[in-house]
């Protein structure tokens, strides 16, 4: 069987003959727009973000996109690559391209500002509205927090979220239900609920209350998460814990 090879064409860019990628990028403002084609030189170890940067620097400077750290820490450069939400700075073209073709669009489930830049406000507003932030208890825990205790392990399992919204874009429940807070927020609430230094465990579980039950456990978030977290497992933990509280009828008196 013949292997598919990148197409060879004359470009004048970086040498006389080189392999080219066929790149389609979403161009347009707000709800409207169309896919536009670009030919981008294929290079070794090239990331999808490199491709977008090449288009903006050498072909069309009006292309809007967002990035910052380029090393997978800031969570700014998430886009939809060949139908799948990804962090583009850590996604090699060789991983994502199909037959030398790459199609790059904005993230799903968020309003498009222009081209590849989406408005992240709805994502962070849900985060804010759920109060998904650390609440200092004001006092040190009675027992020292051991790294190997079950609660700490549960918190650590979800702590490395970089807020890139890849899970939010991957999630069908987010697409179907505007009230659903999304996997990232619920994952954060679960890490807080398991953090013994946090002073408002019941508040975090209350905030997760109705929202966590809107998750349909499709595990798209776990599949897409670039840092390998499993928000579905965190949400399953929240569902159990929220029901346990409903059974016990506990009020928001704080953690004893």
């Amino acid at each position: 069987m013949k292997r598919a090879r990148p197409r060879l064409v004359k470009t004048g860019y970086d040498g006389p003959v080189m392999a080219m990628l066929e790149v389609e990028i979403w161009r347009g403002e707000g709800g409207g727009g169309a896919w536009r084609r670009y030919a981008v030189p294929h290079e070794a170890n090239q990331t999808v973000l490199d491709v977008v940067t090449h288009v903006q620097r050498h072909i069309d400077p009006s292309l809007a996109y967002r990035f910052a750290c380029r090393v997978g820490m800031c969570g700014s450069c998430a886009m939809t690559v060949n139908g799948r939400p990804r962090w583009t700075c850590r996604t090699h073209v060789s991983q994502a391209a199909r037959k030398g073709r790459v199609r790059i669009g904005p993230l799903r489930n968020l309003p498009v500002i222009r081209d590849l830049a989406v408005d992240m406000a709805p994502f962070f507003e849900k985060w804010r509205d759920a109060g998904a932030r650390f609440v200092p208890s004001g006092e040190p825990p009675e027992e020292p927090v051991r790294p190997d205790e079950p609660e700490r392990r549960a918190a650590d399992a979800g702590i490395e979220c970089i807020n890139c919204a890849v899970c939010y874009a991957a999630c069908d429940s987010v697409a179907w239900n505007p009230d659903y807070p999304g996997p990232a927020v619920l994952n954060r609430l679960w890490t807080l609920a398991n953090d013994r230094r946090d002073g408002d465990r019941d508040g975090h579980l209350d905030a997760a209350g109705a929202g966590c039950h809107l998750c349909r456990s499709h595990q798209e978030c776990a599949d897409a998460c670039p840092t390998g977290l499993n928000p579905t497992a965190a949400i399953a933990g929240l569902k159990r814990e929220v029901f346990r509280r409903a059974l016990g009828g506990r009020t928001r008196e704080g953690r004893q």
Partner: protein
Amino acid sequence: MKEAWLFAAQRVSAMVLAPLVLLHLGTVLYAVRGGLSADEILARTEGSLFWGAVYGLFVLAAAVHAPIGLRAVLGEWCRWRGAGLDIAMALFGLVLLALGLRAVAAVL
């Protein structure tokens, strides 16, 4: 709080339904001969407390399970939410329960 109880009710009813559905399918494959008719089935099950109890439980679990699932589907696909949906789903559950128990009563 309501969602937490519905979540639990759906999971528990699913746990009840899982073995009963398998038993039901196995029974259908084993028992049906020469076409599926109420007379034929009743001829073999009538007066059996065991089958009455099995299908009584089946009907109860299905009447709990189905409306909760349908409520989620309608909420997401048709954007129908609120008290109206809850009442409609409660009625749907009651209809399932009535129809199912009517069939079970025939067995007993």
